[in-house]
C-alpha cells in the first residue's frame, strides 16, 4: 500500500472520531444547560468544554465573551476554528478523497453524504434550538460510517490504519478530558469527594458516553473517582476507556507487523505501554498523580505515533 494512502486513511479516521468526540462534548454542555444553576462550579462548565477540546485560547481570539450559543457555533461551524466539526468533516472527506479507491464505495458514500448534508446545517444561521438535532445527525453519521467500515471493508492493512486513527484519537481525547476535569476544573483539592466533585465526574462519564456503561459495570453505587479511574482508564470493557484504545492500537499494530512480516519500534513501545496498564491499578495511578500519569501517557503515545509515521508513512527503506 502507498504510504500516503495509509496516512490518509489514518487521518480520515482520526477526523471522524474527533467530530464524534466534539459532538459528545457538546451534548454534555446541552445537558448542563438544562440543569438549574444552583450549585457553585456549574458556570465554568462552558469554559471546561473549550478547555477539553483544547481550543479555549483560539475561541477567545475571535470571541469576547463565553456564551452558550457562541461556543456551540464555534465548536460546530465557525470558520475561525480549525478543529470545528465542520472542519473535521471536511478534513475527513479531503483525506478520503485522496484515497477513495482504498475504501469501498459504501464507505465513501457514507463519508461523502455526511459532507454534503453538512451544507444543510451550515447554510442557515446557527440556532441553538437545533443543537440536539445536529448532534444526533453527527453521531448517527459517525456510527453509520464506522458500521460501513466494519461491514464492507476488506480486513487488509488499510483496515488497520483506519482503526489506528480511530483509537489514537480516542486515547488522546479521553486522556485529555480526564485531565482537564481533574486538574483544571476542580477549584481546589478540598472539593475532592464533595457533591460538586461527584457531579463533575458524572458529567465526564456522559461526555464520553459511558454513563450508562458505568452504572452497568458498578451497579448503583456512589460515583467516586477511584471507580472512575478504574473505568475510564483501566477497564477493558468500556469502549471509551484509555486502556481499551491502547489494547486496540496494540492489536492493529500487531496485525500490521504480521501482515508485513517485520517488527518495528511503534509496535514494541505500544506493547510496553499496554503492559504498564495491565499491571496497574487505580491506587497506583492516584499515588503517582493522575495529572502526571495522563501527561506521561499522552507523551508516550505521541512518541509511538512518531515511530508509526516513520515506519509506515514515509515509505523509505528501513
Amino acid at each position, binding site marked *: 500500500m*502507498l504510504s500516503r494512502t495509509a496516512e490518509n486513511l489514518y487521518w480520515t479516521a482520526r477526523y471522524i472520531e474527533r467530530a464524534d468526540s466534539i459532538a459528545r462534548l457538546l451534548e454534555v454542555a446541552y445537558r448542563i444547560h438544562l440543569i438549574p444553576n444552583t450549585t457553585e462550579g456549574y458556570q465554568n462548565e462552558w469554559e471546561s468544554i473549550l478547555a477539553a477540546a483544547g481550543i479555549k485560547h483560539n475561541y477567545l481570539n475571535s470571541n469576547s465573551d463565553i456564551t452558550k450559543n457562541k461556543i456551540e457555533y464555534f465548536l460546530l461551524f465557525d470558520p475561525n476554528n480549525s478543529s470545528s466539526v465542520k472542519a473535521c468533516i471536511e478534513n475527513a472527506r479531503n483525506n478520503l478523497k485522496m484515497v*477513495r*479507491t482504498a475504501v469501498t464505495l459504501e464507505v465513501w458514500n457514507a463519508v*461523502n453524504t455526511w459532507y454534503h448534508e453538512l451544507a444543510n446545517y451550515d447554510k442557515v444561521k446557527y440556532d441553538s434550538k437545533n443543537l440536539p438535532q445536529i448532534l444526533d445527525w453527527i453521531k448517527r453519521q459517525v456510527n453509520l460510517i464506522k458500521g460501513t467500515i466494519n461491514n464492507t471493508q476488506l480486513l487488509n492493512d488499510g483496515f488497520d490504519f483506519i482503526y489506528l486513527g480511530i483509537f489514537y484519537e480516542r486515547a488522546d481525547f479521553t486522556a485529555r478530558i480526564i485531565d482537564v476535569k481533574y486538574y483544571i476544573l476542580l477549584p481546589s483539592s478540598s472539593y475532592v469527594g464533595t457533591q460538586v466533585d461527584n457531579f463533575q465526574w458524572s458529567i465526564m462519564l456522559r461526555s464520553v458516553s459511558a454513563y450508562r456503561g458505568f452504572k452497568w459495570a458498578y451497579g448503583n453505587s456512589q460515583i467516586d473517582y477511584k471507580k472512575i479511574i478504574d473505568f475510564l482508564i483501566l477497564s477493558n470493557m468500556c469502549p471509551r476507556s484509555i486502556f481499551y484504545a491502547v489494547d486496540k492500537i496494540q492489536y492493529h499494530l500487531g496485525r500490521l507487523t504480521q501482515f508485513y512480516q*517485520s517488527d518495528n519500534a511503534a509496535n514494541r513501545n505500544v506493547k510496553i505501554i499496554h503492559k504498564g496498564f495491565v499491571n496497574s491499578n487505580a491506587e497506583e495511578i492516584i499515588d503517582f498523580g493522575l495529572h502526571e500519569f495522563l501527561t506521561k501517557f499522552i507523551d508516550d503515545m505521541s512518541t509511538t505515533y512518531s515511530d508509526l509515521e516513520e515506519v509506515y*508513512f*514515509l*515509505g523509505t527503506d528501513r
Partner: protein
Amino acid sequence: MIICMFNEVFDKNKPRVAYKDIVSWANSIPYHTLIKKKNEAENLFKKIGITFSVYNNFDSAERLIPFDMFPRVITKLEWMTIQEGVIQRSLAINAFLRDIYNKCEIIKAKKIPAELVFVNPAYEIKMVGLKVPHNIYSPIIGTDIIRTDSRSFRVLEDNCRTPSGVSYMIENREIMMRMFPELFEKINIEPVENYSSYLLDILKSLAPRKCEGDPKIVILTPGPLNSAYYEHSYLADTMGVELVQGSDLIVEDNITFMRTTQGKQKVDIIYRRIDDDFIDPLSFNETSVIGVPGLFHSYKSGYVNICSAPGSGIADDKAIYTYMPDIIRFYLGEEPKLPSIKTWRCSKPADRKYVLSNLEKLVVKEVHGSGGYGMLIGNSATKTKINSFKNKIKNNPDNYIAQPILSLSSVPIFKKDALTPRHVDLRPFTLLGHRKRRLVPGGLTRVALKEGSLVVNSSQGGGVKDTWVLKN
C-alpha cells in the same frame, strides 16, 4: 458558410429508425417521473462523487456535470466508419510523433513546414533521438467528432496528451441502466464497461526496456483539486493500480520507486495525467511541485515508461491539425477516412486576408488553446469582440486559425416536459499498445445546454449524455 443543422433524431418530425423506440419511450414518460428520475440520477452522481472542479470558480469548488437522460444513438454502420477513422488517425499521429523526434522525413519531404514543428512550444527538444518503448508515444487518444449531415462525421480536434471524459462515458451508462432498465431490455446496446480492462491490457504491453516480469503500473495525478480527479481515481480503482501523486514517487539511481508501507517499490509504467511541463522539475518546469525530480532521466534510461510520452502534445496542436490529412497520407499511404474541417491558417497571408474580412462567418481559435477558452464565434459575437479579435489576429497571426461556423448535429434534451434539440459532439477513446489496438464501442457525447450554443465544454456549461452504439 453556415451549414444547415442536422437533426440526428427526427427527419421532418418523424423519428429516424434508430431512435423510434427511444422517442416513443421519451414521449411516454410522465413529467413528474422524469423529474423524479432526474433528481435520482443527480443524487447518484453526487453520492459517488462524480464532480468536477472549475478553475477560476471560487464559490463552488465542486460541481456536478449536467446529465441529460435522452440517449444519443449511433448505428452499427456509423460506428464502423468512426472506428476505422479514429484508429487510422491514432496510428498516423504516433507515426508522426516518432518521425518528428527522429528522422523528420515528413519535413524533408516538405509536407509540413519545419518551423511549424520545431518552433512549436509543444515540441519537446529533450525527446529528440530518444527511443520510446515500442514506438508508442500516445497510447490513449480522444478524438472529437462532429456530425454535419446524415453521412459525414468530421474530426474537430485530436486529444493525445491526457484526454479526459472516459469515466463519464462509463458512469453515464451505469446511471442509465439503473434509471431505465426497461430500455436496455428492449434495445441491443454495446457495453462500454470493458474500457478499464482494455486500458490495463494496453498499458501492460508498453513495458520499458529494463522492466523484468509483470510491469508495475501506476496512474500519476496532480491531486484532488484537479478537474478530472474523479476520473483518475475511477481508472485506478477499476484497473486495480495505485493512484499516485508526485510526492509518492522517488527516483534513485535512475530507477523510479513509489513509497509504500513496506518501503520502496519499483514502478515500471506511469499513466500520467499531469502535463508535460510538470512531470519533472529537474528536466522541465523547475517550479513544479507536483512532479517527480529525476523522472525524465529514469525514463531516458529505460527504467520507466511515461504514457503519453513527453512532447506528444504537438500532434494535437491546432496548427498541426490542418495538416492531418497530409500526415495520414504520408505515413499510411491512405486517404483519411474521417474528413477534417476546412481551416484557414492566419499565418498564411491569403488565408489571413480572407479571415479578417469574413470574421462574422467564422470560428476563430487560438492555436494552442483548449477547453473552449479564447475562442470567437463570429455570428454571435459583439462588434467589440470581433474588433478585438481583428487586432489580435493582426498582431499575432501565427497564433490563430479559423474554421467555418459548423452547425453541429443535434439530439434533443429533456427540457420541462418537451424535447428540445441541442448541439452535440462525440469523443471516442482509441487505445494503442504494442501490436494491439482497442476501442470501446461508444464515447462521450457532450451537449451544449444553452439554446443555439455550439460550446459543449463542461467548463463552459456543457452537459453529457449516454452514448449508445447499437449492436445491430
